């Protein structure tokens, strides 16, 4: 499905350069490696839990690559590690959320242009609309990019967000990663009609349903959507069709709700392998490029591991200090008695 009018300027139509393609590949490898490392770290006890994005690298790297961090703003869920990495967010600070060091992550959302990690399904979709409307009010040209899943599409907030955005012509790109599952519930029991993209027409909003496992297709679609929204034409919805190849989280056991055969059939070809074949086929990259990317990914994951290991717990005073900008006497009193009773000072 593609109901997005062709770009006016054509700026977004230029295909990625070979260098960019190699960069996309390197990013996907870095994300894949960090993702699989994180699962190992969870098993080793370094982090208490993790929500893998195995198989969604193309959707995340391709869309994140279209973001202009000098003006756009991105609203992730709990599974957008690949987007964060692509945007250049400090990955120790990002992964700290999986270490349970701080719920929202330790990175600076304003500087990195990435909102805090969001654990409420569909929780931040409306925030993107508000932020985007702020761009209109300020006569700026930033675009809000908000991620959510097929499961999240069932939440009332998503409807309210799409309607608000379309009524206000807010520059928002709604990016749905339809990975086939919401924990144990498959898309066909979740999304009536079978497609989130099909909802857009009801709001008079253009939509693209794309192959989410083709990183170049994702990048091009996201660029087109950004150009449309940035030019004052209102919101766009992208539904990237992909597959959650791993468990929902390290606490999940997919064997209870899908067979290995179903998993294989649903997943199709690995997006990373697919991109690799393509780059090889058209001569954009060779084994040396791939080897360099993998080595870099390994080194990077090692660095992140070291950083995460070094991360201590947060001091208990932060519980009290970060509630308000202007603290209250009651809270200060509680902090004092906490200090007395728990720190025994």
């Amino acid at each position: 499905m593609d109901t997005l009018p062709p770009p006016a300027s054509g700026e977004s139509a230029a295909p990625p350069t070979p260098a960019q393609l190699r960069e996309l590949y390197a990013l996907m490898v870095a994300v894949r490696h960090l993702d699989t490392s994180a699962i190992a770290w969870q098993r080793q006890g370094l982090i208490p839990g993790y929500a893998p994005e195995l198989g969604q690298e193309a959707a995340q790297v391709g869309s994140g690559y279209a973001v202009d961090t000098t003006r756009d703003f991105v609203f992730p869920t709990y599974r957008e590690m690949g987007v964060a990495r692509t945007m250049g967010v400090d990955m120790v600070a990002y992964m700290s959320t999986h270490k349970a060091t701080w719920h929202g992550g330790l990175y600076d959302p304003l500087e990195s242009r990435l909102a805090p990690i969001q654990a409420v399904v569909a929780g931040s979709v409306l925030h993107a609309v508000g932020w985007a409307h702020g761009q209109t009010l300020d006569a700026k040209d930033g675009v809000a990019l908000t991620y959510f899943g097929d499961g999240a599409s069932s939440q009332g907030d998503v409807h309210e967000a799409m309607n608000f955005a379309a009524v206000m012509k807010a520059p928002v790109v709604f990016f749905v990663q339809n990975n086939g599952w919401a924990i144990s519930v498959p898309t066909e029991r979740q999304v009536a009609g079978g497609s989130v993209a099909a909802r857009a027409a009801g709001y008079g909003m253009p939509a693209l349903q794309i192959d989410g496992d083709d990183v170049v297709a994702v990048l091009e679609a996201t660029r087109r959507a950004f150009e449309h929204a940035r030019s004052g034409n209102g919101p766009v919805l992208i539904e990237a069709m992909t597959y959650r190849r791993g468990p929902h989280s390290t606490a999940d056991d997919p064997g209870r709700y899908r067979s290995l055969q179903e998993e294989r059939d649903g997943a199709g070809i690995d997006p990373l392998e697919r991109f690799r074949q393509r780059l090889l086929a058209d001569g954009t990259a060779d084994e040396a490029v791939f080897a360099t990317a993998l080595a870099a990914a390994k080194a990077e994951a090692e660095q992140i591991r070291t950083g995460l290991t070094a991360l201590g717990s947060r001091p208990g005073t932060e519980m009290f200090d970060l509630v308000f900008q202007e603290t209250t006497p009651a809270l200060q009193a509680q902090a004092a008695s906490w200090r007395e009773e728990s720190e025994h000072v």
Partner: protein
Amino acid sequence: MSNSILEGESAGFRQAQSPAQAQSPASTTAVMSMQQALNLALDEVLAENPRTLVFGEDCGRLGGVFRITDGLQAKHGEQRVFDTPLAESGILGMSVGLAMAGFHPIPEVQFDGFAYPAINQIVCQIARMNYRSRGTLPMPITLRVPSFGGIRAPEHHGESLEALFAHVPGLKVVSPSNPHEAYHLLKYAATRPDPVIFLEPKSRYWQKGEVDAARHDADGGSPTGAKVMRAGRHVTLVAWGAMVARCLQVAGLAAEDGIDVEVLDLRWLKPIDAEALAASVRKTRRAVVVHEAPLTSGLGAEVAQLITQACFDTLKAPVERVTGFDVPYPSGDLEDEYIPNIDRILFGIQRVLEYKRG
């Protein structure tokens, strides 16, 4: 909307105000209704801070169903004062994004009972974004909610949500009891960097009172503290919102029987001014807390417990609670049976005065 059942009570309030006003020679006071005072406060806030935005259902062209935003769109423009689609979660969720973009949103929820669809955004997002973001994304959102009962409205139009909001870490909660408080507390709230739930007692919208725009507390009290609206020696009545006027009326009647009632307007329902509670009850040694919300797990329990903790030795009787009942807010005439009335408050006073240790 029919008339307020609280109509008769304005006199009590005006009496209580006038001494303070009379003291200050330089005061530039004007008499206006709470609706006018709130409108004036919003008008000034919009003029003073270009980042403020006023929005909600019917807030623009109509000026709100209670006319609190009357004329503001015409004066400050359709970009800064606007109507939204009919979706409370949308209104509050959008406020979060606007705050992240550096605005100071002043959204309205049309009636208390319609805050429930927005609770998820209020509790899980607005109240926590500063914390979640480690202080980098403050939420200077002032949510106005026409609140409480007393106007013979349909179901869901007479609710008291203060106990719910006061329990949520990351929120501050305030309720004005008269036009002067409404003007100053709204101006104060709308200039703070933290989220404030502003509960407007809709049954008091049309009652007039003196507003001294030049200063909030003639006695130099803190804008975040409680306020003694009438000093007394025998018992402290603690109230907020519309119940303050009623308690002042009760105090007037009790005075005829020689009972000297102190009326404390709590103003801030989170954080609660525990010191003011303690100071008053240390003096009177007896307290009755009055609210419209249902009894169980209402804010009266918190107030009573704060008083008991601070004044255990001096208290002559357990703190009494005179409140709404544990029933869904009732319709029509039954509202008079539900909202604490003069008799029930007098009975409460009697109980603490006559209490004898067994």
